[in-house]
């Protein structure tokens, strides 16, 4: 059975990730898997600048470095275990879900990619451990993660409370259509009021938008439709603030990395600026 995978990394946002994941697991009736990955820090040990290599320099150095790594690795293991234990306690206390934990070595993104076949939804925190308390900084892994996995990702922001509505930015292209399908099939958002927003209707024909609204309504969604004009990103932000949107839903990057280099990506900008949780659908 596929599960909800939550990345617990010990940063201040860990609790929010834990809550968001437990909420999603509860709504989707799936088990929750808490993942902590021990990311290897670069070793330093820049203490010997003598630049000389004597007999058996290589094996001696290898022995020394292995020892340093072992000590650090033991501590990281203990820390990871206790992080997972407290997260497990927290999530099973808040929601009646089955919680499993997994401790892995290596890059978070790599661990997630490996677990992809077991994943229904991945939950990550908006800022990782590296950014300290700086909430608006985007976690270094998020972009890589969204580009590499083909599973929907929920990006939690701190503190998390179950959302009361959600907003989908619609622009009529394939990504938006797929997002629509995923929302309908998914089940996570079924009983939440939906704000379907399209900016600059020139981009797509009106009928497409109307079709989308009808489709959602037919599936039983409570839809508020809005057609707006103006610069895409700012308009969406304003709408979000005006209507107290509590969850953003969007399709993943709709263009290639090369185009992104020149044009920037609305997806990434939204993630950066969002102060609400956000789901990137696949």
């Amino acid at each position, binding site marked *: 059975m596929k599960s909800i995978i939550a990345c617990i990394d010990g940063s201040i946002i860990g609790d929010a990730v834990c809550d968001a994941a437990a909420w999603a697991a509860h709504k989707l009736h799936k088990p929750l898997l808490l993942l902590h990955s021990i990311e*290897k820090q*670069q*070793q*330093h*040990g*820049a*203490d*010997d*600048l*003598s*630049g*000389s*290599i*004597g*007999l*058996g*320099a*290589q*094996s001696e*150095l*290898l022995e020394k*470095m*292995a020892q340093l*790594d072992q000590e650090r690795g033991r501590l990281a293991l203990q820390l990871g275990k206790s992080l997972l234990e407290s997260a497990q306690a927290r999530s099973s206390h808040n929601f009646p879900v089955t919680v499993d934990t997994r401790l892995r070595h290596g*890059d978070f*993104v*790599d661990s997630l990619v490996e677990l992809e076949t077991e994943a229904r939804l991945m939950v990550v925190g908006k800022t990782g451990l590296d950014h300290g308390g700086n909430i608006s900084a985007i976690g*270094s892994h998020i972009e*890589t993660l969204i580009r590499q996995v083909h599973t929907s990702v929920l990006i939690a922001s701190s503190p998390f409370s179950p959302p009361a509505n959600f907003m989908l930015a619609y622009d009529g292209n394939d990504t938006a259509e797929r997002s629509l399908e995923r929302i309908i099939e998914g089940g996570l958002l079924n009983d939440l009021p939906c704000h379907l927003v399209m900016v600059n209707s020139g981009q797509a024909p009106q009928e497409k938008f109307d079709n989308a609204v009808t489709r959602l309504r037919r599936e039983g969604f409570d839809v508020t439709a809005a057609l707006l004009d103006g610069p895409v990103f700012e308009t969406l932000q304003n709408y979000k603030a005006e209507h107290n949107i509590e969850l953003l839903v969007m399709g993943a990057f709709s263009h290639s990395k090369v185009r992104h280099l020149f044009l920037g990506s609305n997806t990434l900008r939204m993630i950066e600026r969002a102060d609400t949780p956000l789901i990137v659908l696949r």
Partner: protein
Amino acid sequence: MKTGLKNEWLGNIRADLLAGLVVALALVPEAIAFSIIAGVDPRVGLYASFCIAVVIAIVGGRPGMISAATGAMALVMVTLVREHGLQYLLAATVLTGCLQIVAGQLKLGGLMRFVSRSVVTGFVNALAILIFMAQLPELINVTWHVYAMTAGGLGIIYLFPRLPIIGKSLPSPLVCIVSMTALSMAIGLDIRTVGDMGELPDTLPVFLIPDIPLNLQTLQIILPYSVGLAVVGLLESLMTATIVDDLTDTGSDRNRECKGQGFANIISGFFGGMAGCAMIGQSIINVKSGGRGRLSTFTAGAVLIIMVVFLDEWLRQIPMAALVAVMIMVSIGTFSWVSIKDIPRNPLSSNIVMLVTVAVVVATHNLAIGVFVGVLLASLFFAHKIGRFMVVKSADAGNTSERTYRVVGQVFFASSEQFIASFDFKEALEQVVIDLSDAHFWDVTSVAALDKVVIKFRREGADVKIVGMNAATETVVDKFGIHNDPDEVAKLMGAH
């Protein structure tokens, strides 16, 4: 990208800069010494070290590894330089780079798995011996001052790091060079210095196309050297990458490293530098000094050229004896002393492979030939060992006119003869059953051997029945695709 470009460059700034500096200081004498081994001006090795280090920092597949002009490469190019001159060396360097890029494109980096541990050890030991031998001309027919200075230099190199505090904050080879140069200048000794060995750089390298006729004849001259250089360069680079992988417990991209080496050599050739590759000793020094990222390699190259361009008047004064001391340290540090200690514990065949590799290299002065012979020998030993995993058992069926032979094990070129010899053709039989259900036929030789056995029995008047043929010959068909399917492998190797 697993680690991210930013992390590879800026993940470790302070330590990378420091380590790069230490490496640059250690690189200067080596680059000069390797130029002298190759028979070119010190300028050529210094330019090469700069170009290669800087380029490989950007395009290489193993962050934190140091590449520059090396002894292994210098040894391969000696005759080319002696017989045809510098311009041909530059052209050969560019061609070497092209070959290495092709090797990277063809993903030949994976072929390193055929180079056994013993061959690698032999390569390293031979390299150390050759570097040491290359220092001998500097120590023959000289005054006692040179011996004293070399001994003093070695003393400084090995004893200085034992001093408290400053011992670990200053590179001891540098201390050796500076103090020996100061000493020789102070007392005005008349001994050979770096300035006597040829031109030193006084400007940054400039782009120039090697001045050679572009025809088939030129290609015939440089191609054999380029192939040798490409092979030796990739071998040493990939071996060094493995060492850095082990030390830092991180991974490297071998094929990217091959292409990177190629690209670096092309640039080096066009900027008046000789071919180079990764350096085992310098990479260990880099890791030991805290260098992990691409920045350390880049710093080493950049600092090297700055020092060389601005300090050329001083470099000229370095006595050769001080350089010899540094190179002796390099050769001692490169030699794998553990391999000598382990000789009694290792299997005889491994020892033979190692020693033969060393002997061939020292005799031919060509690391590529040594590795080739080593790999060949190791494969033969392996084939011989596996060939012994074959027995033919026989049981008669109660009466004397029928016999069943059961073949168990690996039948291939190395065991075919033994396979044929295991049958008793003199026995008068009417019916022979050969049961192959527990045998594996690996190649055409083994199939031919089976044919021969069948025909021989038939000529003696027996009927031959073969059982389990299909299972046994499955391995003949080159179905190598199955190696990553554990179920298929288990079925093939054990189930029947």
